[in-house]
């Protein structure tokens, strides 16, 4: 057991996967000589050589397409988007090529697409995006977004092991702000399993990514007001672990969904719809959501701070819901 940052944990998982299997290769812009825009793959070129750590031209569709092709002939590529925001240029390759391959009898595509996502670093509209909702509607891909170093490593290993295309979203604001214990070796964390981060009996808070930490803080603050929130970290967004949610909501009868992403058409909408249809009977209160307003992510700190759900806003939502 070592203590690592979120960024170190991702690098650790990637390195171990590459050591374990020569079929794992890395491709992306500036990933080799430079070691990546966040220096996450620093040293990889030296250890694994230019045949396995490949700098590409600026071409996100080319990178993802090449990853698909390499996957189809037996490799397990890990393709990097320099920022998740640029994944929009690879949208067609992901949604129409990678995601449909198995269904259309084209073959398995064991491709991982790593994409540094999320706000909180003053990146402005094009270096701060949450992109999970763009792909959540697409059968054939999986989506993960770890909140802790241990999950960051373990989910990456599982993503690489998975025979399907997996979007591995990593939150930039957690890279160096999160430190924690990480198991050594190939410490897999299974895809498709949510994790209860804090037990509680009054309200179920469903969240993921950076908001896990804010929800935990908010839950502590709510506990001061005698409200015990259960905080569930989804970890995998596709497929969703509905069983864990259902079990919790059956106990609490109240659910608050929190994400950093905009509300409209976000992952939270589907969770709310699921609850409204299948758990209606156990509900004692409206299905509530907290998320970003309906605009791009603004640049100025005063705006960005107001854009992101704050601990206080979440705390209030928890307490209001418990008292409804």
């Amino acid at each position, binding site marked *: 057991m070592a203590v690592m940052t979120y960024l170190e944990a991702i690098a650790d998982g990637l390195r171990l*996967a590459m050591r374990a299997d020569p079929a794992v290769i890395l*491709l992306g812009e500036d990933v080799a000589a430079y070691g990546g825009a966040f220096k996450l793959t620093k040293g990889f070129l030296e250890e694994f050589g230019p045949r396995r750590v490949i700098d590409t031209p600026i071409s996100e569709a080319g990178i993802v397409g090449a990853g698909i*092709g390499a996957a*189809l002939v037996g490799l397990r590529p890990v393709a990097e988007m320099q920022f998740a925001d640029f994944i929009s240029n690879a949208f*067609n390759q992901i949604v129409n*090529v990678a995601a449909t391959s198995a269904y259309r*009898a*084209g073959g398995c595509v064991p491709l991982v697409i790593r994409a540094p996502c999320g706000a909180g670093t003053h990146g402005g509209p094009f270096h701060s995006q949450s992109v999970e909702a763009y792909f959540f509607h697409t059968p*054939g891909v999986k989506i993960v977004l770890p909140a802790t170093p241990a999950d960051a490593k373990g989910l990456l290993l599982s993503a690489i092991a998975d025979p399907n295309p997996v979007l591995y979203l990593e939150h930039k604001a957690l890279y160096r702000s999160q430190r924690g214990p990480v198991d050594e070796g190939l410490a897999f964390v299974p895809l498709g399993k949510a994790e209860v981060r804090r037990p509680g009996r009054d309200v179920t808070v469903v969240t993921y990514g950076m908001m896990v930490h804010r929800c935990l803080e908010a839950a502590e603050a709510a506990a001061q007001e005698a409200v015990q929130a259960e905080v569930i970290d989804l970890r995998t967004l596709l497929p969703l672990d509905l069983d864990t949610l259902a079990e919790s909501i059956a106990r609490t009868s109240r659910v608050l969904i929190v994400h950093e992403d905009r509300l409209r058409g976000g992952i939270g909408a589907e969770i709310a719809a699921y609850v409204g249809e299948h758990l209606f009977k156990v509900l004692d209160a409206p299905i509530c959501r907290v998320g970003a307003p309906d605009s791009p992510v603004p640049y100025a700190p005063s705006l960005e701070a107001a854009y992101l759900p704050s601990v206080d806003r979440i705390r209030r939502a928890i307490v209001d819901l418990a008292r409804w």
Partner: protein
Amino acid sequence: MTGRGDITAATTPAVSPGLGADDLRTLYRYMLLQRQAEDRIVKLYRQGAVVGACFTGYGHEAIAVGAAYALGPHDVVSTLHRDLGARLVLGMPLRYYFANFLGRAGSPTRGREGNLHIGGLGPRILLHIDHIGASIPVAAGAALGFAVRQEPRVVMAFFGEGTLATGEFHEGANLAAVLRLPLVLVCWNNQFAYSTPVEREVVGPLVDRMAGYGIASCAVDGNDVLAVYDAARRAVDRAREGQGPSFLECRTMRIRGHSEADDASYVPQALIDEWRRRDPVERFDQRLIETQALTAEQAADLRAAVLAEVDDAQAWAEASPAPDPSELGRGVYCEDRPWP
């Protein structure tokens, strides 16, 4: 390096390098098989038996067959809507062709896909993708895979000239050039992309365009199967030797509509007539007879055998049931494969 002239522009070679009489007959057989299968599918389409749209590679047989025939036994193709012959050369059973057009459970896509949208057939035919251009980064990636593993294998990608306008084609071709990947780009320039003439898709000669990518480029008569084979052979050799990608412009003409629902009335009749006279199948037929590579009797036998194969394939497909609705939503994800 612009790469131009690395492959000298191939004209019909007097002798076909490396090809014996058997090869010539095999080439002919595949061309005939594509032609007759497509004639049949058009008939079925007119009868209303084809479920969706109907595209053929009518007049493109020399390109599909000639280029694919230049591949080695472990090489891979990426195909589109006019290159049935290439799939046949790589061993796709004709039965699948009919079953897929008819939307039957026996097709490799189990009725989930139609038309020639067949890919992922074993390790040698890459997934089919309908978005023009999208298959090129994927083909480059397969070539990258071979390069990473240092396997002497080559990827050959087929597409039309309109494809050169797309951003995805560009990113794939550029990536292949930068990484010097073992990729052979086989373009059928059939002068139209749907109704749009080539000069409205890209300005200037295609070979100049691709030479500008640093890709060795040449143009050949796309209605001459030996000329195509010859150029493809050189490109495949270059790729296998680590000299990077090549681009072959195979000049031909789409002598039918874009699909069978299109009467191509926007094409001057004279242009169609002119190219009909250069029909690649008939031309090769005559040539084989003239050079006595094929006797009239052998030709008749071959035609009969091909016809029987088409009949069998159609019958097999027709006997295959419609997919059962219980299949709905199945197969979207791959099952686990152990790792590492």
